[in-house]
């Protein structure tokens, strides 16, 4: 009797662990990509300094999330230009931003745009205005 009771608890505990394991595996395999908000920025600082930094080693920043502070030099439907040649694309509609305003934003570096000669960021979010 005692042995059966002991075994029963072992079985329950094992099933529980198995369940947790399967659930975690399922979550890992089917997880949605992280949003910009959920990723820690690999660089935080002035947009002008970042521009200097990437000139030396662009590859290092490819697909990395960064947080930069700069001046809005142009506004478009889906994004803004920061310090003239950093294009920042937003997923949401842009509201309440004006030219020459200094803002801090977070976004993902997707590459250097050779056609327009700009650094390109997407999935941007505004951190501070």
């Amino acid at each position: 009797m005692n042995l059966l009771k002991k075994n029963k608890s072992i079985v329950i505990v094992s099933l529980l662990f198995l369940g947790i394991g399967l659930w975690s595996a399922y979550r890992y395999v089917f997880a949605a990509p992280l949003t910009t908000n959920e990723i820690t920025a690999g660089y935080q600082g002035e947009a002008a300094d970042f521009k200097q930094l990437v000139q030396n080693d662009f590859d290092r920043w490819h697909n990395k999330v960064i947080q930069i502070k700069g001046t809005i030099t142009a506004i478009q439907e889906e994004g803004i230009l920061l310090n003239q040649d950093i294009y920042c694309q937003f997923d949401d509609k842009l509201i309440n931003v004006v030219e020459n305003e200094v803002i801090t934003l977070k976004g993902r570096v997707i590459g250097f745009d050779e056609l327009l000669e700009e650094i390109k960021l997407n999935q941007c979010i505004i951190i501070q205005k």
Partner: protein
Amino acid sequence: MKNAIVIIIGLLMALHLNAQKYFTRTGMTQFKASEEAFEPVEAVNKSTTAIFNTNTGQVAAQVFIAAFQFDNALMQEHFNENYMDSHQYPKAIFKGILEDFSKNKLTSDSSSFDLDGTLTIRGIEKEIHTKVYLKDENNRLYVTTNFWVKPEDFDIKIPSIVRDKIAQQIQISIAYELIEKK
């Protein structure tokens, strides 16, 4: 004096001609490589840069590989790291020309043009011939097209374990809204 005026007018016209470029930074490029009965293998890129010269019909586009968004994080990671090597080849590049293009032919209804060009993915070039549909609405050009490529065209190796889940022919669709470049 007369000559000077002619030259000035000539220069102004040349400048005006040079300005006939349309572009986008947020063009949509999509691919579908799904096989029925399996999980969809597809992603959307809304960050394509494209420039179109309406005088010559020349087009150039840059597709940033890291900007392809999947519903599934693991699939996105494998796409970037195992299949596309996006760190080494961050961009796909297309260069081409619309045959017999003239901006006068455009209306607010779609007209079709033949597009000939070269698509470069992972440093490997492939000729592309397809039809492109274009319309002009309030001086915005709407461009759409789709064509098919094969993974082996670009030396993309697909492990046999997932071979059945990825289509042999991958459909690439684009939809760009171009504005005049000033």
